[in-house]
Each structure stands twice: as structure tokens, then as C-alpha cells.
């Protein structure tokens, strides 16, 4: 599904160069629920941005479904993000003046669906994660958990090949976090590939496979046999 080949990411700050990712390689298989974990500053979010085409690695390749996407133009990357990938951010990243329904249907419209079809698909996605009653609410009228679930609905509505979730529970209390993670588990059961960045071992324990980063390198890549 997605292959990372020797990904290096360095940031320049004046004369100094800071290596955040130091040659990372791994493969995510279709239908997998994978978590990337590690301490703060270990490079897990940076890795996710490279894989999710939100950033360009200094060197290395990202291959999605057999296609090298490392050298795509900005517009082509935008199109891949729109059609093949889904994103869930730590702070929900919803557009404040759009309702839950509108937030979800915007990428669908961009994909060329008619407003009617986009609406139907967005409603379906929101109902799937249990937000069918809050379609007309703008983000400020929703709780943190509900906002994150709208964000999940937006990420999955167009049936992407892979969903990237960057610390999706960081701003939520433990009860709400469990609901959100339950959503992930259910989606994964239905076949959705998910790559989640988390620093909480408890949440990483819910995934099929755990990759641990330290100082920009993979220190462990384990299949979670004790998946809860």
C-alpha cells in the first residue's frame, strides 16, 4: 500500500543542519492499523507529513500503491492528497464557518461530485461515526470529541487508500479519546488502512503494528499480538 524508502528529513537553521529523520524505511500493508510512537521530538509527526505528502523529504522515496509520489509536482501532490489520502489532525482542523456536513462535503465537491451526491456521501460518513444528528452544527457548537469525529468523517468520506491521524486524541479527555479510537478500530475492521501517530502507549496498543521512533530512527517495529 505505502512504502517509505530511506526517508531523510533535515532542517536548516542558519549554518546548522538538524536531522529529524535519518533514513527511515518501512511498508504499510493494505488494511493495516499502524501506530507510530515515540517520545516528543523523535520525528513521528515529521515522518507522517512525509508519508502523507504534506511535506517533501530531503531524500528518499514514498511509494503509494506502486507509484513513486516523491517527485510529483505541487498540483499532482494536492490531487493525490485529495483522492487517495485522508487526514486527521490533533486540533481537528475544521473550517470554522462551515457546518459539520459542509466540512465533510468540501473535499467531495473538489473531487467533482455534484453537491447532491457529495451531500449524500458526507451524510453517510457522518452517520457512520455517529454524528448524523449534528450535521448542521458549526465547529463552535460541537464538543472536542464531536469535532474530531467530524474530522474523521471528512477523512474517510471519499474512501481513501490510507488515513493519516496525527495525535488524534491529544486534545481530548480519556473518555472521548476512547470513543474516537473505537471509531478507528471499527473503520479498520471494515478494511480502512490507518496510520496513527501517538505518544500514548495505551492507544498504540490498540493497533495491529507499532513502530517506535527515537532520534529520527526506527528502534522497533513490532506486530501487536496482544492487540486489545
Amino acid at each position, binding site marked *: 500500500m505505502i512504502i517509505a524508502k530511506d526517508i531523510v528529513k533535515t532542517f536548516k537553521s542558519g549554518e546548522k543542519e538538524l536531522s529529524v529523520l535519518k533514513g527511515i524505511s518501512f511498508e504499510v500493508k493494505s488494511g493495516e492499523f499502524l501506530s507510530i510512537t515515540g517520545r516528543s521530538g523523535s520525528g513521528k509527526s515529521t515522518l507522517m*507529513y512525509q508519508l502523507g505528502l*504534506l*511535506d517533501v523529504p530531503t531524500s528518499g522515496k514514498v511509494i503509494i500503491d506502486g507509484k513513486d509520489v516523491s517527485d510529483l509536482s505541487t*498540483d499532482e501532490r*494536492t*490531487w*493525490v*492528497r*485529495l*483522492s487517495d*489520502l485522508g*487526514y486527521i*489532525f490533533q486540533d481537528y*482542523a*475544521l*473550517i*470554522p*464557518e*462551515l457546518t459539520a456536513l*459542509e466540512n465533510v462535503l*468540501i*473535499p467531495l*465537491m*473538489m473531487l*467533482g461530485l455534484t*453537491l447532491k451526491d457529495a451531500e449524500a456521501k458526507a451524510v453517510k460518513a457522518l452517520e457512520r461515526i455517529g454524528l448524523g444528528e449534528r450535521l448542521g452544527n*458549526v465547529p463552535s457548537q460541537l464538543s472536542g470529541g464531536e469535532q474530531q469525529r467530524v474530522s474523521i468523517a*471528512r477523512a474517510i468520506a471519499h474512501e481513501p487508500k490510507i488515513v493519516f491521524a496525527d495525535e488524534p486524541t491529544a486534545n481530548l479527555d480519556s473518555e472521548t479519546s476512547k470513543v474516537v479510537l473505537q471509531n478507528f478500530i471499527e473503520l479498520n475492521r471494515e478494511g480502512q488502512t490507518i496510520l496513527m501517530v501517538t505518544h500514548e502507549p495505551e492507544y498504540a496498543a490498540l493497533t495491529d503494528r507499532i513502530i517506535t521512533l527515537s532520534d529520527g530512527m526506527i528502534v522497533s517495529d513490532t506486530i501487536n499480538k496482544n492487540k486489545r
Partner: protein
Amino acid sequence: MERRKKRFKNFLISLQVGWFLAFRQVKRSSVATTLLIIFVMTLTFLNLVVVRGVLVGLLQGSTDVYKSRFAGDIIITNLPKKNYIENSPSIIEIAGNLPWVDKLTYRYVEGASAEANYKTRIDFTEEPDTTAGSVVGINPALEDAATHISNTVVEGRYLTDNDAEGILIGANMLKKYLDIEAPGLTLLENVAIGDKVRLTIGENRKEFVVLGFLQSKVDQIDFRMFILDTTFRNLAGRGDYNVDEIALVLKEGADEQVVKEALMASGVGEYARVQTWFESLPKFLLDIQNTFGLLGNVVGSIGLVVASITIFIVIFVNAITRKKYIGILKGIGIDKTAIEFAYVLQAFFYASVGVLAGMVIVWGFLVPFVAAHPIKFPFSDGILVAEVPNTIVRAVLLIIATLIAGYIPARIVVKQNTLDAILGRK
């Protein structure tokens, strides 16, 4: 071909998504902010239209009065080097019989001097109370029907056919109305309605009773004296009935050029100069009008630049405060064209609503109000000129400037790195 088709389809999708975002952004933004931006756009539009409109209207008021009170639509005057229009009676007949002519008036004009207070003058070493100018012989009924000159009477009353010894004096021949000291300019002092003045045309002199004073802010009335045509003919020895001016007022919708050509074709041009009212305008008036128009355009251009900067700042502040959301939209795959469209459409909305409000204010209130209550300038009653084509051009210019000014900041913000925008990094 296929590629172009796909690109066009993507463009349409971007437009649709841009519209979707813009509509909701405006709909759910603060009403006060939206109203404030529209108010600024309205003021900018008014600045563009009204400043020029007043400058041009200042002269337009003057030329309008020149036309309505003096020249009519067509003015026939004596040829250069001729003292009067030869063959006047037949020209008046030809002009009066033209199907387009609604009203006609003719005038006899001669240089004259008027003297007041001559009966009470004791010290003959002092200058007499005199003034020099033109005296005009008119048929009061015809003149008033054509030019409504009686409306310019500011004191006393208008002439009637029975006022063989009555005279009307233009305000600029009287010290009380034109209180200026200029070399060579002598004005009548201490003249009141009912007083007697002595009029001298050539060798002939006659005493008249002052019936009224006229003030129109047009020199052709304010610097002239008016008496009955019958009296004039006797006093000036114009037994041939040859006049100096014939003013024609045309029927509604009649074309001045057509009438002028008809008159020329009838041979009037051999004896007189035939001009439309506009052609007869004094050159300095046209020069000032053009200069004011130019000034108006300069001020308008500055207004346009100010409007562009205003909308640039509004859209830039709006886009920069929403940088994170722009980043998110780009991050989830929304095309940059769609996001730029959203901001351009918002700029278009602010500009077009502002312009529409401005048009309603200009045509619904300002133009009729100023027409009913002209701005009293010393030399004219200024109106507000806002011709439809000119105003539309300014509206379109403002909207185009706004679209460009809306697009540039949107482009600047949209071009920023997606991830930096999402993460709030500088």
C-alpha cells in the same frame, strides 16, 4: 484536447468550490464587519463619482442656465463684421415654420450706457452714476415662453407689452449685486425699483423706469439691460426689423444638428451664424469644463488606488488571519485556485454591493436632491453630474481594481507552505 477539457472541468470545479466557500464565509462572518467593508466600498465609489460629478456639475449648472435662459437649443446670431442679422424677418419666418421648433424668441442688441441719479446730481466734478453694457430689445411674451427669463427677476417685476418705458437691469450692472472694484468697471449705484435711469444708444437718449433686476449667473442676462422691442426699434433706429439674436427651443426629442442643417439648407447661413447651444458656448467655459473633468478623473484615479489598497488590506488581513484554515484546505486537497476564487469572489461581493449601494445613493438621492437644491457657487448653481455610461465605467473600474486587489493577497497567502500554515509556523 482531452487535457484541455480536463483542465476546464477542474477550473469549473474550483469555481464551484470557491463559490461554496466564499458564500459561507460571507454568510457566517460578522455582520458588522461585512457592513463596514461594504460601507468603505460605498464611500470609495461615491468619492469616485461625486467629486468628479460636483466639479463637472459646477460648470454644467452654468452651461444649463446658458442654454435654458439664453441660447435655447439653436442660437442664430449676426455674422462677424455685421451689426445685425440681415433679412431677419424672413429668417424668423423660416425658423418658426420648421416642424421641430417649439418656441422662438428674437432680440435686438446694441451697446448702450445707462445713467442713474442724474436728477439729484449736484457736484458735476464727480463722475456720474453710470454703467455701460448691452441693451436688449425683446418681445416679453415670446422671450419668457422660450427662456422663462421672468424667473430670473430677483427684485421688482418682469416686462409687459405695456411697459414702453420700463427697463430690466442685469444684476452684474448694479453695485449692490456685484460689489467688486475692477479697473474700468463702473456699476450703477443707489438704484432701486421705480427709479428712473437714462439710457443712451448712439446719439439717442431716453428715460426709463426701473421695473426689475435680473440675476441668472449667466453673463448674457446679468450684464445686460432689457426693454421692449418696440421701444428699442425707435430708440436705436431699427425700422428694418433686423434683429441680432434668434433663439430656438426645439420640441422634445428633436435633433439640434438636423435643425441646424435644415436652417443652413434654407440659406440662413448666408445672413447669419447658426450654432447649436453647445457650439455657441464661450471657449473659456469649455476649457474650464474640460479642466474640471480632468481634475475629476485625477481625483477619481486616486480614489481608485485608495479603493484597491483598502480591499487589498481587507482581503490580506482576512486571508492572513485565516492562514491556518487555508493551509488545512490545501492539506486536505482543495485546489489553490478554488481557495483564491473564494477570496476573489468575496472581494467581488464587497465591491459590487458597495457599488450598488453607491449607485442607489447617487441616483436615488444625491442627483435629485442636488438638482432640487443646487450648490450655490458664486458663478453658477452647481448640480451633480453622474451620467449613466460614465458612472458605469467607474463602477466597472472599481470592481476590476477590487478583484485584482482581492486576488493578490489571496495568492500571497495561498502560496505559503501548506504544512507551515497548518502548524502555524512562520
